[in-house]
């Protein structure tokens, strides 16, 4: 069950993991992008943590607030993508104050759909979509979420980017993990941990 408190806990946990991986995210983006993904995510999740002290009546309210915060603090490509994800997940959570596995999954599927729609992207382009979509497509409550996420992140290493800044480097984008894939796995791990 994901409670409002659990959701908050997940977001705090995501923030501390992003902080711990800030340099890694930035270095990955430096290799196949513009070197700011760790900085952007860190700025965004710091702002998210700052709004967690407020009270939220529903999971939907919290998710929407998180999305709006990310949207107005992250910037870059990741901002609208993560922002849309949480904003679009909100109606699925609706007025619920706690969500079981299947509601969480449904909300996350909404989030994933929002990312693809906003980014006009699909699986196989070496973006965060390559974590969100396959992770959710055949997700079971009994899965080892972390292992699955790690595999998906690792799989982006060998891909050639066709979306986002990494696509500028064509074949040379191969050999580096997509930074957005890694940050997505951090966020999803933190949420799934609270659902377990």
């Amino acid at each position, binding site marked *: 069950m994901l409670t409002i408190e659990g959701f908050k806990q997940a977001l705090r946990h995501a923030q501390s993991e992003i902080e711990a991986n800030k*340099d890694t995210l*930035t*270095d990955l983006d*430096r290799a196949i*992008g*513009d*070197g*700011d993904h*760790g*900085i*952007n995510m860190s*700025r965004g999740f710091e702002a998210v943590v700052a709004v967690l002290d407020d009270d939220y009546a529903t999971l939907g309210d919290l998710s929407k607030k998180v999305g709006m915060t990310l*949207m*107005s*603090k*992250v*910037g*870059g*490509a*990741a*901002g*609208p*993508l993560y922002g849309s994800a949480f904003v679009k997940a909100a109606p699925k959570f609706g007025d619920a104050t706690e969500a079981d596995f299947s509601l969480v999954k449904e909300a996350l599927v909404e989030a994933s759909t929002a990312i693809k729609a*906003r*980014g006009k992207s699909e699986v196989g382009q070496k973006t965060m979509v390559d974590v969100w979509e396959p992770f959710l497509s055949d997700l079971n409550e009994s899965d080892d979420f972390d292992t699955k996420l790690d595999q998906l992140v690792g799989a982006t290493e060998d891909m050639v980017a*066709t*979306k*986002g*800044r990494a*696509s*500028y*480097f*064509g074949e*040379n984008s191969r050999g580096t993990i997509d930074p957005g894939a890694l940050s997505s796995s951090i966020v999803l791990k933190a949420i799934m941990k609270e659902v377990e």
Partner: protein
Amino acid sequence: MKKLIGEANELVSQMVEGMVHAHPELYGRVEGFNVICRADGAKSGKVGLVSGGGSGHEPAHAGYVGDGMLDAAVCGEVFTSPTPDMVLEGIKAADGGNGVLLVVKNYAGDVMNFELAAELADAEGIKVDHVVVADDVAITNKEDRRGVAGTVFVHKIAGAAAASGKSLDEVKALAEKVAANVRSMGMAVEPCYMPVSGKPGFDLNEEEMEIGIGIHGERGVERKPTTNVDAIVDDLLDHLKKEVSPGEVAVMVNGMGGTPLSELYVTYHFVAKKLEDAGYTLKRKYVGNYMTSLEMHGFSITLLPLDEELTSYLDAPSAALGFKL
């Protein structure tokens, strides 16, 4: 990495503060946002023109705010697209009741954030349209091309059209005409350094240069041994000449921020000679820092085919500090 800044995370805000303080006759700041607008507010009846993006490209974009060019510039964090709420503030500040055109450089982040802002503005009843600039021929696939220095010509021409009283559709059509025809390509011998992380965009040794760089510290599409600028210009022009036919053009030799002006004029000297030898007529010439990448040492060349219409808008008066005419 050495930076002449205060706290890295206050860089953009202090820069904006400095700009507005230095040029109060020209600039206002949208309270609480890193958004620069006209000191005298939106011009009633005029189509508003808004641009922006990550910071670090100065004089872009605030340097193009002024009579005859932009009405607002939205200044994101360094090399990071501004957020939709910021862009919305820019739109509101530029809205004179006759619609607002957004000039967006073709990056996933810029496009998404500006689109989101346009949706928000629409919800508030402001007529908004946008044009996407993708002039960087270093990228083969046209859809993925980055918006670089050619964007300045879009600002200038769309700005002059808006100032002359054209409608939103007309201004947009002109902006698209420029965007469809302008082409650029850049290179660097030294990277820039991200203010927050302190890291260079790429690591080059003493004998290497990057060809086909963007303006966000990203690596070029090709790494080569350094040569003199004569040969480098050949290299960039080879790409550009494939897409811009001989004829009357505007040419811009744009510095990346850390390039001495003396080098830009030497570079221009070669560019002009080679283009004229190849049958181009350099009708208008621009040499200087127009769209930079922090302290990167390098340059880009931009070509825009000219007809009388574009030429007259290019020559129209502008009060913008970065393109004073």
